[in-house]
């Protein structure tokens, strides 16, 4: 907590406040407001001190007083003051601003369309301050911070909502919710787009923040902002045909336009499709062509390159563009890699983190792009630098949080790259110090580094070779430790690693078993988290494959016959059921059938399986059931009856990377 947090206003500052409250003469108030503004702008201490004596309430009263009728000169000063307070990182302060109703009041005065350009610019700057991140993450990128868009947090539950206790019951309201609670808000913002570049920037920044979910995106889309955005882009991009140069009249405005296109298309297939199909009436170019023109090398702005690339990434992730579309594979991917690989101490580390996170987002589930991504050593070597020695790239005085974030993003991207192709896995795993560093990251106290390291282990665990070589006792101990964590996200990831690490040829298997992994997996079967319970049954299934009789008996004793019957009859989760049926198939390996089958009442088992066939389950389940029934009927020739496992297992995979269709892992389960 800063030392000034307990400060109260000085005597002079108190006197100024009295001039504002006691003196009702307009000119005197105007002068006092200017002095007040000059005190608080650029001063956290002043803001904190004034807040402690209830100055916000005073400002709100002044705002109301001079709103009817509108005194624009005074209101401009009030807006500037409120805007400064709204930038504060003091949560109590910003909570109070929202409680008092500043946003609603500002929207009310903006209905008036007879005011000056300065008035609207000031009001919108003020409004914008309520929405934008308080963390100015890029002190190095430019003297005026560009607020970076972090999509990863966009659709999280509204933890940043402020609880307001208004009688009779308390309810949560965020600036975004307040904005949409006024049915005229979007119309007001649309009208103000044409006033000036400053209002355009403010409006677009607000709209970026308002795209919190698909519903809000759709509401914004319905207000026809896109033609205006396209016009702004076209207006500000000049083509010098003679020297093949794109110059930009207003880079900041273009950056914000691109950021808006990214926000509105994020995880929204229908809007992404609409944007893809949008053609400019001015130039007859598609929006994609316009955005692609900004990815030319000559472009100096990293932010423009980043958001133009991110736009195509969003179109790809919503399946509007395929991953081998040139916009994605040639332009976006290349731009993002080039941005990540640039190292410059004067550039903003948070932009690099965003680039890495966007690459993770793109490459996760698009394994066909992996080889393109690492075509030159550029990306991999830079990722290793970010992981091993970030301070050498960004300087020694780097914020600890930033270091952790970039290391964790770099490690996660390495995990994604190592999760599919064997040659890439090998290249990454064999990098000197990588495994040691990943182990150190797990042992750090930081959750994001721990999760990133486990993701790397998960990626590597999808390889027979890695399971036989890399997964030593140290990693086993880490898995045993992580599986007992109280953090659910961590446990889910490690359960995916464990489910691969218990396979018969894994050097980890024995140590995991002696560490009690079986009992832990059995307890997870009934966990409320579906993904964890499926990972557990999957792990048990893998554990039972080509296993010894003892282990199979331990599984059966832990699971119990009654429970198996109960699950077969009552389980409605199809993925869980497939895994359970595969587990039974593995248990009834020919050499153990004579011992294990009598533990089941084979007549009862047969009739249970036949009842399953009558249910409306997908084909994979019926195939597994038919296999088991055939096996029970003709016990003497099991190998002739055994069905191929590949088609069943590929749909069963539940892991960190659900979109993966991992050929490698399917082969692991061959009979």
């Amino acid at each position: 907590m800063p030392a000034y947090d307990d400060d109260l206003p000085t005597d002079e500052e108190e006197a100024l406040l009295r001039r504002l409250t006691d003196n009702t003469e307009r000119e005197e108030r105007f002068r006092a407001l200017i002095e007040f503004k000059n005190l608080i702008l650029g001063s956290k201490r002043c803001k904190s001190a004034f807040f402690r004596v209830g100055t916000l309430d005073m400002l709100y009263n002044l705002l109301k007083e001079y709103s009817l009728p509108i005194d624009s000169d005074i209101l401009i000063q009030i807006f500037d003051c409120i805007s400064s307070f709204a930038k504060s990182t003091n949560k109590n302060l910003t909570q109070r601003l929202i409680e008092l109703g500043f946003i609603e009041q500002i929207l009310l005065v903006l209905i008036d369309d007879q005011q000056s350009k300065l008035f609207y610019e000031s009001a919108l700057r003020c409004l914008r301050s309520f929405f934008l991140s308080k963390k100015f993450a890029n002190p190095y990128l430019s003297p005026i911070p560009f607020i970076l868009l972090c999509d990863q947090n966009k659709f999280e539950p509204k933890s940043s909502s402020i609880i307001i206790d208004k009688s009779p019951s308390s309810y949560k309201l965020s600036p975004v919710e307040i904005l949409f609670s006024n049915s005229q808000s979007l119309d007001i913002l649309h009208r103000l787009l044409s006033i000036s570049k400053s209002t355009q920037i403010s409006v677009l920044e607000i709209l970026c923040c308002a795209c919190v979910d698909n519903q809000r995106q759709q509401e914004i889309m319905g207000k026809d902002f896109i033609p205006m955005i396209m016009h702004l882009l076209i207006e500000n991009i000049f083509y010098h045909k003679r020297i093949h140069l794109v110059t930009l009249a207003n880079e900041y405005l273009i950056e914000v336009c691109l950021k808006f296109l990214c926000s509105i298309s994020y995880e929204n297939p229908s809007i992404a499709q609409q944007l893809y199909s949008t053609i400019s009436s001015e130039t007859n170019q598609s929006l994609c062509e316009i955005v692609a023109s900004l990815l030319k090398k000559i472009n100096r702005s990293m932010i423009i390159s980043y958001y133009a690339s991110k736009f195509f990434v969003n179109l790809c992730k919503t399946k509007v563009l395929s991953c081998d579309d040139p916009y994605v594979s040639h332009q976006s991917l290349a731009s993002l890699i080039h941005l990540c690989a640039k190292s410059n101490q004067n550039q903003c580390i948070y932009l690099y983190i965003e680039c890495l996170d966007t690459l993770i987002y793109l490459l996760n589930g698009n394994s066909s792009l992996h080889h393109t991504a690492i075509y030159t050593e550029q990306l991999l070597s830079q990722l290793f630098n970010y992981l091993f020695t970030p301070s050498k790239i960004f300087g020694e005085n780097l914020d600890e949080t930033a270091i952790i974030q970039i290391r964790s993003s770099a490690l996660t991207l390495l995990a994604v790259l190592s999760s599919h192709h064997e040659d890439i896995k090998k290249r990454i795993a064999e990098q000197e110090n990588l495994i040691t560093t990943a182990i150190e990251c797990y042992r750090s106290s930081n959750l994001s580094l721990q999760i990133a390291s486990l993701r790397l282990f998960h990626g590597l665990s999808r390889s027979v070779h890695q399971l036989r070589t890399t997964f030593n006792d140290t990693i086993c101990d880490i898995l045993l430790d992580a599986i007992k964590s109280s953090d659910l996200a961590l446990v889910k990831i490690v359960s995916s690693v464990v489910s691969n690490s218990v396979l018969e040829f894994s050097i980890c298997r024995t140590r995991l078993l002696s560490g009690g992994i079986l009992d832990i997996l059995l307890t997870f079967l009934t966990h409320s988290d579906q993904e964890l319970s499926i990972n557990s049954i999957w792990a048990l299934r893998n554990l039972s494959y080509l296993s010894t009789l003892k282990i199979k008996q331990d599984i059966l004793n832990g699971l119990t016959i009654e429970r198996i019957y109960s699950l077969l009859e009552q389980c409605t989760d199809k993925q869980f059921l497939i895994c359970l049926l595969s587990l039974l198939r593995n248990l009834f390996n020919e050499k153990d059938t004579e011992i294990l089958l009598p533990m089941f009442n084979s007549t009862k088992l047969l009739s249970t399986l036949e009842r399953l066939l009558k249910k409306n389950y997908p084909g994979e389940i019926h195939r597994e059931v038919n296999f088991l029934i055939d096996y029970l009927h003709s016990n003497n020739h099991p190998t002739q009856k055994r069905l191929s496992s590949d088609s069943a297992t590929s749909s069963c995979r539940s892991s960190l990377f659900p979109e993966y269709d991992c050929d490698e892992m399917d082969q692991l389960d061959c009979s």
Partner: protein
Amino acid sequence: MHAHFAQPIQAAAAAAVAAAMAVSNTSSTSSTSEAHVSTPVHHTATKAEWMEAIEQQRLERSTLNRLIINYLVTEGFKEAAEKFAEEAGISLNNVDLTSLDERLRIREAIESGRIQDAINLINTKAPELLDQNRQLAFHLKQQHLIELIRSNLIDDALTYAQIHLAEFAEEEIKMRQELEKTMALLVFDKPLESPYGYLMQISHRQQVANEINSALLIYQNDESESDLSMLVRMATYMQDKLDQKQLRYPKLIDIAGGKLEDS
């Protein structure tokens, strides 16, 4: 005025372009085994050849004039810009002279030590600037502290530092160090002659004024640096590149005078 400015600017601009061509020619020959028929390779260049390359650039007078206007406007020399525009027959319709005026007034306020006036003008023109840029806010307030020390208002200086500058010292070590140096001026009878006397120099005011000017230009989404400055930096950079490749060429040794080294 044209004769005084045109030649060095032309030389700088043309030198930058010629140097860029020379660098690209050498890199293309080193990276491919085929010769580029249309662009001859220059491992060495005589002064005559160089001058010929410069002459071939054909920079128009209007381009050069626009470079000068851009410099004058960016640096805030309004009167000079108006006069030059009149002489050169250039319209200043696209130039926001009000904004230029405002920046000029802010610069004048800082350079004459009236920092509070400057803060007032900055907050009128760019109300978000000092909240968004802590370093800028700190340097302005530090300058005000220096002015209080210069005026020998020691009590006021101490109070001002406690109330308005302490928060910056808490935030960042560099600011704390700068504040300590500034406060150390109070210890000396003749602060101007102390090891930190440079803070009291007029040049320090100019430094702050330049910093504010650049920030204001960026704030209003203009380029923070004139095209001419960028061109000079580009020419210097290109010459460094050629030097690294150990190429012989007539180096531009005096940018202001447009003087080339004899090769």
